[in-house]
């Protein structure tokens, strides 16, 4: 593997039942409520959601539209303060009492947007290296880091291309690499593959799993695909809509790495059926 190993990765790589001694990458969600107040119209988007996420755990948030899953993820990313409740990332409060996200804590988060969200005027490698520019890393170091990540994601030949020259699947790979570039301990993903065709989606799910196995980052992924949730997750968090409430948490313990054929397995199928019933489809 060409990526420089994260020195703390070994400490975090055992998501066993016991709480890990290092809490780096842990997420504690404590009674989050989010009310939108637009022109006097109050909308309750998320109501009293509490959740513990272990370091290195792969958590998938799923629910019908209006269940507040994206709101919850944006709150986790420091993009909007909750109306009530607290979030702790690696043991530190994400929001100050005034409702401002604490910069040092956001620095530990990587975010993957729904539609790649690349800057069209930047080449692939400069898109990947954007977060490193903010950290004042030197240009040769940024290029080296982008090359490492490019190799990891099969983008090596395309580092100097513009995003408009890439397919949708490849653009999304670039987006994931950009989020990983500053080596965050937590990766937040907002329906990252929803705009892709089924085959590309399978491939990226597989690739994401392998990357996760490599780095053991904590991942929180929002999706509306039941199969995707069952394939990727250690823990599936079901949210019910209007207002968004925690409905159920289901542990998934298929051995890893999970092959794509797993989806044809009986146990997998019954999990999918269970999820479908829970979601009321």
């Amino acid at each position, binding site marked *: 593997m060409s990526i420089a190993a994260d020195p703390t990765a070994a400490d975090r790589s055992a998501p066993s039942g016991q709480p890990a001694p290092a809490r780096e990458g842990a997420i504690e969600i404590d009674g989050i409520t989010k009310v939108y107040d637009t022109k006097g119209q109050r909308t309750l988007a998320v109501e009293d959601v509490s959740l513990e996420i272990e370091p290195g755990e792969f958590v998938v948030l799923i629910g019908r539209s209006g269940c507040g899953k994206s709101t919850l993820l944006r709150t986790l990313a420091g993009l909007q303060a909750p109306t009530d409740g607290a979030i702790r990332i690696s043991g530190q409060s994400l929001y100050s009492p005034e409702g401002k996200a604490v910069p040092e804590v956001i620095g530990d988060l990587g975010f993957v947007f729904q539609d790649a969200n690349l800057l069209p005027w930047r080449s692939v490698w400069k898109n990947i290296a954007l977060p490193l520019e903010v950290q004042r890393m030197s240009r040769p170091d940024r290029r080296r880091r982008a090359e490492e990540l490019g190799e990891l994601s099969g983008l090596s030949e395309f580092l100097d291309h*513009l995003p408009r020259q890439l397919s949708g699947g490849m653009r999304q790979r670039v987006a994931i690499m950009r989020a990983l570039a500053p080596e965050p301990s937590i990766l937040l993903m907002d329906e990252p593959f929803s705009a892709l065709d089924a085959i590309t989606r399978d491939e990226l799910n597989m690739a994401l799993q392998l990357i996760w196995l490599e780095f053991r980052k904590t991942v929180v992924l929002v999706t509306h695909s039941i199969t995707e949730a069952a394939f990727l997750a250690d823990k599936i968090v079901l949210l019910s809509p209007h207002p968004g409430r925690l409905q159920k948490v289901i542990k998934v313990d298929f051995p890893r790495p999970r092959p794509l054929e797993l989806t044809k397995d009986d146990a997998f199928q019954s999990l999918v059926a269970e999820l479908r019933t829970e979601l009321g489809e």
Partner: protein
Amino acid sequence: MTMTNRDDASPVRSMAPAEGGRSLRELLDTYLTWITTPLLLLAFIALWKLYVVVLDISPFMLPPPEAVALALVELLQEPFFWNFFRITVTEILVGFGLAVVVGAGLGILLGRSKLFERIASPFIVASQVTPKVALMPLFLLWMGFGMQSKIAMVVLLSFFPVMKATILGVRSIGSEQRDLFTVIRAPVWKRLLSLDVPAVLPYLLTGIETASVLAVTGAIVGEYLGGNEGLGAMVVMTLNAMRVDQMFATIVALAIFGFLFYAVIASIRKIAVPWHDSAQND
């Protein structure tokens, strides 16, 4: 471990045309305007000549093309022509430059703040719906018959499209792109340099192209109405002297300058925003 690239049969859309095997059709397609433009121009001149000869038009109404060409050649050898040319070009370039700065500055301000736009827009709209040419005597009164009054007219005429385009550009930046810069903790200067400026650029260029045309108009109109310097004033002077051939020659010279000016401005797009759809050939 490496992710594979199988998600697309040909993942990279080629930007350069395929080497070798370029058909006649492709060649024609590439150099089409190199043929059609001179041909159409020739046809126009021929029609002009035909019209003058067949209908026996007085050279005071419409001089034949060769008389205009001759007058132009003569003019190009006159030092006073070049002096006037320099004055007009200075007015255009200075006024245009100021218009871009004022337009882009106001555009960023108004694009960023809805409140500011609501407060300022009645006055900006008023400055545009007022017949601007009617303000020229006022500019002459305030700034005299020199270049300043004409530059003011150029700015007034050409800042508006720059400002409008910049506002649109600032508003076009998606909330997801802004979120991205929040997530990576980019400071204000980084946002401005790496997001606002490049995102606004294609829009700004559109505004600048329109402004470049209006800038030439502004300078000429200004010179028509006041003072005795510049090519606009020369059009009036040659007409008063009944030298219609020279008047036409002056107009031709202005048209050539305006065309070149616009071409230079428009060519910036390919260099400045090669990533944008507007800079693509296909």
